[in-house]
């Protein structure tokens, strides 16, 4: 009896629950655009739309401490009094959300994606058609695009992305506990037993960058053997940068961590003793992780997007982005003036390496998975 009541309730409740939240596609096309996307003024909104650039970006660009985003918005709007920048928080699924949207033919609202990495483009092209999601850049419309430093080219054959800053993955170590490791092979020596903290390449950007760095150094046939030796020497791969750095490293669990070469900028600002903030570039290298910006294929405001890109590469924004994000500018030194403090504490590796689009394409997922299965070793 009760069971029948319950089953009846399931079907009845389902119809009740559905009723409130239904829209018909026809409605959506006519009114939905007006109401749904928040301009609500019918046809008049088209004009204001032309001067609004919606930019989606990651959290720390707009929401952390002293972020670059609000500064960029203000300075750009000063320069272009008719224009408005509208920041949008990157959805929790990141680039995947837009890949899913594109493959299911749903509208993508933002015009510009700020914070794109090479592996994001690879993910796009592995799942959508080649050269999808973002439009090929018309470099003629971005005067300053030739200011970008050599070696930061992200290698996209469809030229969809323009770098605006870069970080270098390096090792940070405590010189009172260990000597500077000079090569990757040093890390497998007994001197560095149980010394290294790294991050899981499945869940962490610096973790994946460090893994790719070892693939660059030892080749795709050699990196797993190298990691076997690292594992035997006691490497620990934690979830992400915060856990490994603020959790383990700063509580003195281990004397060395995979981190960024700008570490001392933070450490000195925090008032920390720099003995625990020494930078090591094994094999005299650092792994470059350029961050780029791209324009969505269906962007409503392409012209303004080009203006914005050109602005971002100009002198002052490059300095502000670098110092607020604590990354390096994307342009050659002559086009940007950085504070002396920044120059003193932010270290550039003798040689920057990066695994480019062509090598990542079709390989990245397998490289990471083979590595993760070996490391988990259950």
């Amino acid at each position: 009896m009760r069971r029948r009541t319950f089953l009846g309730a399931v079907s009845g409740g389902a119809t009740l629950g559905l009723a409130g939240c239904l829209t018909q596609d026809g409605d959506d096309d006519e009114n939905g655009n007006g109401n749904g996307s928040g301009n609500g003024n019918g046809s008049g909104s088209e004009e204001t739309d032309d001067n609004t650039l919606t930019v989606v970006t990651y959290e720390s660009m707009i929401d952390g401490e002293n972020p670059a985003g609000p500064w960029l918005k203000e300075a750009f709007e000063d320069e272009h009094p008719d224009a408005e920048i509208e920041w949008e928080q990157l959805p929790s699924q990141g680039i995947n959300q837009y890949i899913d949207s594109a493959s299911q033919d749903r509208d993508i609202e933002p015009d510009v994606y700020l914070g794109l990495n090479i592996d994001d483009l690879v993910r796009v092209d592995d799942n959508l058609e080649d050269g999808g999601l973002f439009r090929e850049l018309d470099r003629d419309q971005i005067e300053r695009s030739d200011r970008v430093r050599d070696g930061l080219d992200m290698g996209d054959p469809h030229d969809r992305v323009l770098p605006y800053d870069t970080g270098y993955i390096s090792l940070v170590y405590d010189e009172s506990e260990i000597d500077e490791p000079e090569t990757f092979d040093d890390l497998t020596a007994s001197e560095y037993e149980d010394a290294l903290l790294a991050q899981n390449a499945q869940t962490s950007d610096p973790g994946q960058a460090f893994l790719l760095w070892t693939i660059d150094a030892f080749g795709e046939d050699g990196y797993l053997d190298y990691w076997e030796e690292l594992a035997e020497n006691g490497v620990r791969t934690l979830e992400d940068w915060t856990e490994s750095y603020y959790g383990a490293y700063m509580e003195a669990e281990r004397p060395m961590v995979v981190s960024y070469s700008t570490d001392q900028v933070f450490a000195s600002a925090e008032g920390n003793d720099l003995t625990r903030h020494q930078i090591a570039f094994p094999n005299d290298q650092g792994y470059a992780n350029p961050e780029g910006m791209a324009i969505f294929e269906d962007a409503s405001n392409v012209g303004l997007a080009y203006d914005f890109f050109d602005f971002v590469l100009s002198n002052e924004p490059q300095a502000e982005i670098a110092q607020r994000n604590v990354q390096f500018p994307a342009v050659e030194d002559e086009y940007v003036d950085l504070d002396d403090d920044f120059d003193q504490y932010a270290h550039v590796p003798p040689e920057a390496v990066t695994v480019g689009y062509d090598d990542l394409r079709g390989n990245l997922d397998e490289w990471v998975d083979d590595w993760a299965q070996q490391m988990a070793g259950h």
Partner: protein
Amino acid sequence: MSRSRPGRIASGAGRIRAWLERNAIRLTALVTAGILAVMLYLPVGVVFVEAVVDEGVPTLGHFAAVLTDPFYFGVLADVFADPLAVGTHLGSLAGWLAAVSISLSLEYPIPGIDVPVPWLAVDTPGVRQGLFGFTAYQAALSTLASVALGLPAAYILANYEFYGRRTLRSLTILPFVLPGIMVAVGFYAMFGRAGTLNGILGVAGLGPFAFIETSPLTIVILAHAFYNAPLVARLTVAAWESVDTRTVETARSLGASERRAFRDIVVPQLAPAVLTGALLTFIFTFMTFPIVLALGGLQLATVEVWIYDRIQRLDYAEAATLAILETILSLGLTYAYLRYESVQSGFSQAPSPPPKEALFPDLRTALSPRRLAICGYGLVALVLFVGPMASLVVGSFTDGTGFTLRNYAFLLERQLEGASFQTLPLPAIRNSLLFGVATLAVAVPMGVVISVLTARTGRSGTIIDTLAMLPLAVSGIVFGIGLLQGLVFGISLPGGWRLQITGAVAIVIAHAVAAYPFVTRNVSPLLSNLDPAMVESARALGASRFRALVDVELPLVANGIVAGAAFAFAISIGEFSSTVILASGSESYTMPVAVERYLGRRSGPAIAMGTLLLLVTAASFVVIDRVGGRYEL
């Protein structure tokens, strides 16, 4: 004429009220079922279907691939690959047993202290556990630890009276609301080589000890206990305070010893609550994710880590396959337990909890072995539960130079000057509290109605009860993706219709769906413990089923309802993975979302926000318990 009108209205209203009363339970059940269909079965179904349908064609290929992969299932993969080769499998089992050796030796297990302990070592040849095997293994250990650490707390809180007891009882579930990242940072700040505990031991000239490095698995298990021992404790306290001690007195007057009366009368009344706590702990720690990676690293990875990875790589089919296997295992265990619970029906008439002794009435009593053991446990609880949280709070006030208020200055500045596209602290606090109260209001009726409909209904009730526990048994990552794919993006229906649900209402309902099982699991054991004759006599005297429930049963299980309500609130406050998806692009963000968004290259602002989360939640728990306490017996 004019007189009869109000009378008719009154009688009309009376009829409606009578109708409502007759159908109240059915209506609540209907709404509950509707909510579950839209906010649970639909989103989960959207993802799960990926496992069994490949480009429109039904397939079991994904299951076959996962089940026979030694990485996932270790030695069992061979069995799944060729289940009929019984001889071969028995042969390898015999070979393994023959290689087991047992040895006895003296070990020095406590670092720094020369106390030899005889150590019985069972040396087994390596068996490949596979990802599922290891996940179950660490979950089992975590469950044991949580029960071992939770029961003494329940015993003390239910049997002794001391200053601040009620407040302490309210605060037991505080760890529940902490985001994983805060727990990890708190554990490092407490147990790290430069952490609080080593700082204190250093004053006594001891250490520093490498607590975390020595055995990451132990620390992961303790962190799981940090979350789940309070769960076991809170469930058990609610049951202990509902024990009918008159039955104990009867047994004692019939000549049973105190020990015997406890074993035969009290233990059976507590067992369902303790086992519920153990079951929930096992399920949660089986599906654990951030804690293992943050404290243990990839070497201790669980199934959920691979589900996350497959989702990131857009391999929904394998993610769904792994998630379904997790769910089958969790629901199987739940069903087994609920069968046990449903045959435990008791004949309790009214809670008459044991009288509470004063904890430290005088010095002599204070030095008795039992009181000293309680002090010892208090010390452990202080280190394990208070330590990480206190270290977080201290961390929010310090930087490289010592004491600082800059992290709070950041929060204040953000609140006063933040732009509309930024996350502000006060709206986050307000949203969290609003959603918490709304969740409580939705989840308590949902949970109670499922308890009422499934208690004492035999096997069919157990099956519905098991299915109703689905929110606990589904991978949080998969539920989040399902909400995104199903409700945020919208589902196309025939006729050009589209179903789309986001924003504050969706968040509250998603929280309620995650929370009501806690209400059910708190209430059901107490409900089935009641003497059914009481409801039957109320019904015989003309009370509707609803009246009998509200006037007779609910007051008798009020302890469970208050505990369940506190859990519902806690689940809502702490929920992150579906909130962040449903709040995307709106101003409906909550405190844990704010913590995540403030996390940058400096951790200070996020930790300060985490401290606010702790304070606001602690204050709310005390209020809930005080308000709810009026209804308790």
